[in-house]
């Protein structure tokens, strides 16, 4: 079957054609890119409806059985659903970008990178082995780097791009090590070969736990979990459609997808599961806390992404792939929606992102407003929007399996309601707080169209009759009636508190420096890097310059120079002469050595 290859290669072809030939024709480049992603989407839908599809694979590296990396596809229900979600959301965001990036100088570069991203992301979804997964994993990181740094002449964007790539690579350090360990123990990198040989791993529980946690490191980097979460908020320096596609809906969710993909390994180690669940929980709470005190519309959304990813990782740690994937599924729609709606706001008020300069936008941007509210309600888990169902599934799971985590999850839900309603109230209600805000008007249809589609999906995405077609839904337990009731109570509390605090305010009545400064993570890491890597680097550089080079090498040559003074006779001071003498010496040496 050619369909899986077409899904993967259409965006790659688009990226190559744009880079090589059409950089100069911006409109053409953008249409090539949109056409490519639509082809991927259509093929994904076709595959989704068929069963028993297989694709030819070829050999990437093969050392006769010892190390064999095929380049092949894994087409099960999990990957088929992901294909549709990724290419579907991707298509909408490509179309939206036509409007958002209309007049951008680097439009061709933008669309080439976007196509390359689709290639890489779909590759992650399709990969049937660890190495191929890792390959595409790194490639999405690269495209993310290019796109965060799209406006690379701005210092903030340039630094954010660098930070994102380096931070995720730290996670990938662990990921690769985990892959190596699993490969050594089972002799294969292909998922379907590892599964039957898992007993070699389960026979060594400590080894298994370490390997599982190292693989999890990859997800910690890519899905921006604590303690490697610091890159994601900065990544908001990229164009907003990128924030929606890469840094909310798809790439950052790839970590969760990967964990679900290798869950059969992770779930063999209870210790690893517990660590994963707690990392997810900490991320969820931490990010929600920080979000309550941010003032940049995109950064608030970025922290909400972190927090929601925390929920997903929590679900993985609670050994429920279904709940994790369900939340990933609904989150992809409502978070893409929120970012695109925020983008519509930002676009129309001339790239202002400070929420305190907005206000009263509900009448100026009606479609944006309505769709944003839909996304916001889904995010805070208000019934009957999609987020309610998926978050409820995770909370119910936590209630059943781990009480402390359940309490933290509930607290996060409260905070989420609080900061999202705060955002809504400040941006869309009250009086306009700046001139641009009062003069803004609605975005063009090419941007509002995708908003409407995503709003629909964010509304119905959680209902069983819809989601069932895509996913195996988590089974609702009977105790669960208590959980949604609690969730709705904290939701009302959080929203009410936010409305009471922020209605008709011109500035923030709360000021918690610790949260505003994001728990000082950036400062702490800056300090840590200065005192470890930078210090070491400078010590080594000093050592290299003065001890090895000037001391050892220079000393030896200086000593030789002294002896050489005795041999002044041959010092003619010209390079060719030395070369000649050198050659003569060699001949003499060979002569003596051979004939002795």
């Amino acid at each position, binding site marked *: 079957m050619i369909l899986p290859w077409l899904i993967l290669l259409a965006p790659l072809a688009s990226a190559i054609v744009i880079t090589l030939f059409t950089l100069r024709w911006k409109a053409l480049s953008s249409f090539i890119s949109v056409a490519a992603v639509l082809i991927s989407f259509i093929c994904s839908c076709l595959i989704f409806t068929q069963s028993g599809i297989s694709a030819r694979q070829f050999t990437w590296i093969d050392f006769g059985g010892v190390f064999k990396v095929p380049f092949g596809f894994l087409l099960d229900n999990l990957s088929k659903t992901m294909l549709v979600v990724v290419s579907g959301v991707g298509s909408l965001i490509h179309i939206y970008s036509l409007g958002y990036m209309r007049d951008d100088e680097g439009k061709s570069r933008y669309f080439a990178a976007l196509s390359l991203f689709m290639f890489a992301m779909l590759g992650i979804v399709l990969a049937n082995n660890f190495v191929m997964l890792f390959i595409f994993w790194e490639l999405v990181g690269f495209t993310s780097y290019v796109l965060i740094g799209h406006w690379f002449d701005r210092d903030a964007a340039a630094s954010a791009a660098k930070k994102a790539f380096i931070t995720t690579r730290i996670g990938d350090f662990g990921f690769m090590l985990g892959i190596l360990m699993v490969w050594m123990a089972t002799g294969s990198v292909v998922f379907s070969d590892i599964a039957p040989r898992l007993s070699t791993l389960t026979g060594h529980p400590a080894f298994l736990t370490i390997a599982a946690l190292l693989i999890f490191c990859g997800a910690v980097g890519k899905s921006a979990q604590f303690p490697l979460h610091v890159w994601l908020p900065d990544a908001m320096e990229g164009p907003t459609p990128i924030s929606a596609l890469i840094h909310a809906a798809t790439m950052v969710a790839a970590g969760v997808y990967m964990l679900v993909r290798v869950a059969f390994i992770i779930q063999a180690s209870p210790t690893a599961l517990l660590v994963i669940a707690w990392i997810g929980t900490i991320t969820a709470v931490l990010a929600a806390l920080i979000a309550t005190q941010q003032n940049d519309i995109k950064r608030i959304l970025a922290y909400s992404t972190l927090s929601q990813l925390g929920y997903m990782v929590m679900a993985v740690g609670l050994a429920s792939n279904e709940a994790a994937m369900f939340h990933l599924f609904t989150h992809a729609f409502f978070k893409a929606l929120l970012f695109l709606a925020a983008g519509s706001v930002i676009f129309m008020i001339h790239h202002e992102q400070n929420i305190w300069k907005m206000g009263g936008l509900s009448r100026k941007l009606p479609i944006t407003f309505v769709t944003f509210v839909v996304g916001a309600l889904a995010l805070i888990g208000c019934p009957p929007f999609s987020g309610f169902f998926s978050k409820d599934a995770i909370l119910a799971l936590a209630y059943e399996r781990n009480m402390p985590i359940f309490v933290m999850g509930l607290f996060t839900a409260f905070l989420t309601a609080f900061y999202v309603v705060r955002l809504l109230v400040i941006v869309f209600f009250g009086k306009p707080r700046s001139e641009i805000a009062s003069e803004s008007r609605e975005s063009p249809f090419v941007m509002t169209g995708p908003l409407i589609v995503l709003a629909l999906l964010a509304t119905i995405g959680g209902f069983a009759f819809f989601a069932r077609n895509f996913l195996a839904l988590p089974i609702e337990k009977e105790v669960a009636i208590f959980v949604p009731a609690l969730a709705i109570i904290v939701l009302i509390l959080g929203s009410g508190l936010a409305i009471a605090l922020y209605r008709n305010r011109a500035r923030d009545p709360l000021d918690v420096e610790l949260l505003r400064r994001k728990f000082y993570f950036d400062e702490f890491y800056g300090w840590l890097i200065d005192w470890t*890597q930078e210090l070491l680097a400078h010590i080594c550089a000093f050592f*290299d310059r003065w001890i090895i080079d000037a001391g050892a090498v220079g000393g030896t040559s200086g000593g030789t120079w002294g002896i050489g003074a005795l041999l002044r006779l041959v010092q003619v001071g010209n390079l060719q002469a030395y070369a000649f003498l050198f050659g003569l010496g060699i001949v003499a040496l060979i002569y003596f050595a051979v004939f002795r």
Partner: protein
Amino acid sequence: MVLFVIFCPIVAAILILIGASARKTALATSVLTFVMALLLLASFQKGQRDFQHVTSFSISPEWHLSFTTGLDGLSLAMVLLAAIVTVAAVWFAGRIDKYENAFYACLLLISGGAIGAFASIDLFFFYAFHELALIPTFLLIGIWGSGNRVAAAWKITIYLAIGSFILLLGLILLYQSVPVTSRSFDIRALQAAATGGQISADSQRHIYLLLLTGFGILISLFPFHTWAPEAYAAAPAPAAMLHAGVLKKFGLYGLLRLAIPLLPEGARHWTDLLVVLLLGNIIYVGLVTIAQKRLDWMLGYSSVMHMGYIFLGIASASILGVTGAVVLMFAHGLSIALLFAIAGELRKRADTLTFDELGGLGKVMPFAGLAFGLGAFAAIGLPGFANFAGEIMIFFGAFRNGWDMERFHIFQVATVLGLWGVVISTVYMLRAYRRTFMGALGERLRGRKELADLRPALRLPVTLLVGALLYYGFFPQSFVRMVAPAFRTYLTANKQP
């Protein structure tokens, strides 16, 4: 055909010295050599481990000295690398202000010498061709270099001469370690002798140490590396491309060609030492690279650092790691050549390579920014480029050496540190890219008239380098099939202690 590839550049160099038009002759020759190398690749029978296209002229029968050339997968890969980098280096050279003919002749001599060394099956010519290539390198730095060029030229001359001398001692001892009756300069004969156990373990140990030191100096093995960054910073870009990209690989090639087949016991004996030294390359030199304040020095140190990975593959003594080492030799040669080429163009335009004075060049030189970016990401092992394929084979090969489930041994620790080196190289490369091409235009560069993007004609060599990197990055198996058979006799796929 092999003879043609070797002597084409050398003859052209002589013609240029006599008075042929320098740039045209050099370009035509390098392209011709490249085409011939491609033909050799096309006619090469993969999967065979013997030398192919062998020609032999006897020089001295009683010494068993003859001028014998031929290719196996390993040497073919290196010849291909040399041919590609030569085209790029000559293309990037452009107009030279003084002694243009001599400059191009030197470039071609390096190329011819390197190809000759890679294609020689005879120990004597293997060594002599390398010496032939070294001398023009010194001249290029001393005469056409920049900055503190004379001091740098002296340093590299003396340093590499000492390295060559130690190497020569080792080679002579190697020649003598075989019983008189089977003494020969022919590498194949020596291999036969070694396989027959005619080289005693004791002499293997001595000779290996000499070869490791000699080759190590040529490759800039820690702690013998300090000549490299200084020389590359001072060298004109094409010379740096050819030396860092091709000629430096001679040492690695020598270890693969001689040490692994002839001195397995010596290699085993000194493994721990080599692992410690190569970690010096990866971690220590990596950290030194982070602290660099100039682009050319940073590139020089990064090139030294990446030698550590190749050594790791060689030290792993598994076919996986060794093949990975060859892939990385090839890939590193191409990517470092691309980086030095762009850095050279930047130096011409900006007249400085200090990070503090650079910045924002991506806006005014978008193509240079793209090319450097591709080279930089190739160098730090982004999948899709051949560098990644090489690194992953090295890591898998090294991690497997001496494995047990209970605890990590030296090679597992080395792999972990090597993987951390990938993070280190990401840090320095992205920092350099950030400070050179991104952000606002550097203050000293504002209003500078010379800042213009690369000539459109330079797209060709860039495409050539990047294209080769991508091709073998996407299809590494074709490289593996070419190279791996060369080692199959000496290395089992799965070396367990």
